[in-house]
């Protein structure tokens, strides 16, 4: 598999374990200093000249959040040198619109969780659950959400990751093996356990629970299948759910595969 720029940088520095991803040292290697001080109204920023830069991180941020911010600013330093951008480092989530922020986020994900280290460690976990997410997040010192996105997008298992707030779906991403016709519902369905987790009626799911696929996907044939869902709270009034496809017929290409009429 072809290495990304962030992964090439890590290999140039001989990084062979997640614990060696020392962001301040990596920043120094590419000409950037990292400073921590109180910032008001943003998590981080970068200012640089021709070959030197200073990255400033809000000293009140959590250590995992800071790591993401440094990696994100290094993405700007790698791809947007000489440009002035209005930047708002948000929590990492899949962005649909191509933008410098998406480029910086993607660089950050590759720097913090390079595929050549992430995939072998992810394979140690048989099931895609938040237990696996938490174990990997601890190894890579990344947030639960960023790690869950990485795990789903690395096609560990056929799954969709969906984030909901009280006003509906905020974002989602799917494993490459899940066909695009499985598009998650905008609103949480009353059948889903996630609804109870979001509104605090039930606690976070310790294990995935089986539910009809039509609770998650608004398609004519969804009621023929079942999926597994597991939700966690990620913020005030926000949950993230792993929806795992358990029926291989859902993964077939529509034209050649299963149809309820055949």
């Amino acid at each position, binding site marked *: 598999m072809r290495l990304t720029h962030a992964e090439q940088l890590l290999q140039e520095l*001989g990084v062979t374990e997640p614990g060696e991803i020392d962001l301040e040292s*990596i920043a*120094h290697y590419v000409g950037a200093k990292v400073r921590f001080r109180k910032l*008001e109204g943003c998590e981080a920023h970068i200012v640089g*000249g021709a070959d030197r830069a200073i990255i400033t991180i809000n000293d009140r941020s959590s250590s995992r959040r800071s790591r993401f911010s440094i990696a994100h600013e290094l993405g700007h330093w790698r791809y947007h040198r000489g440009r002035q951008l209005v930047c708002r480092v948000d929590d990492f989530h899949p962005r649909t619109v191509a933008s410098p922020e998406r480029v910086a986020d993607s660089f950050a994900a590759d720097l913090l969780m390079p595929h050549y280290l992430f995939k072998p460690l992810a394979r140690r976990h048989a099931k895609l659950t938040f237990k696996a997410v938490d174990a990997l997040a601890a190894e890579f010192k990344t947030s639960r959400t960023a790690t869950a996105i990485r795990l789903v997008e690395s096609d560990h298992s056929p799954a969709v990751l969906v984030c909901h707030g009280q006003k509906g779906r905020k974002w989602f991403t799917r494993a490459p093996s899940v066909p695009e016709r499985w598009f998650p519902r905008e609103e949480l369905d009353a059948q889903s356990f996630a609804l109870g987790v979001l509104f605090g009626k039930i606690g976070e799911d310790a294990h995935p629970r089986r539910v009809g696929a039509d609770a998650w996907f608004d398609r004519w044939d969804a009621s023929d299948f079942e999926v597994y869902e597991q939700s966690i709270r990620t913020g005030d009034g926000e949950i993230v759910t792993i929806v795992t496809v358990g029926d291989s017929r859902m993964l077939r290409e529509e034209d050649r595969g299963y149809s309820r009429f055949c």
Partner: protein
Amino acid sequence: MTQDRKRQQEPIRLLVDLLAEDILAASDAEMHEDDDDPDRAASDMRGLFERALILSNKSRLAAARAAVAAERQSRGATPTIDIADARRQLRNALTRKDRPLTMAARNENELSDADVIGLVQDMRELGILPSDDESDGH
């Protein structure tokens, strides 16, 4: 990469080069001396070479780590800056087109006074803005 960093890595690079030369100079018979399986011998050599290269690359990270620690110790106090002056300097720096400037931050008018002063201090340190002493004369 700085000259210092290059010098620090020189001995390991020489070792890697010597190892590579050794492998390339060896005859087929020498390569097979201790092992009759040429594929296994090649794989062992490749492994040895890769390990030496990784070791060499790790020295870059170690050098960067040492430099970060040294920089942390040598950091001095920063001079105070008048906020009106700092905002004016920042606006000027953002509109100048004669030197490369990389910046990913909020708009100047969205930044707090403390954030503006921090940015101006960073720009002075990077030579994007003249230092306090230099600007006094203007």
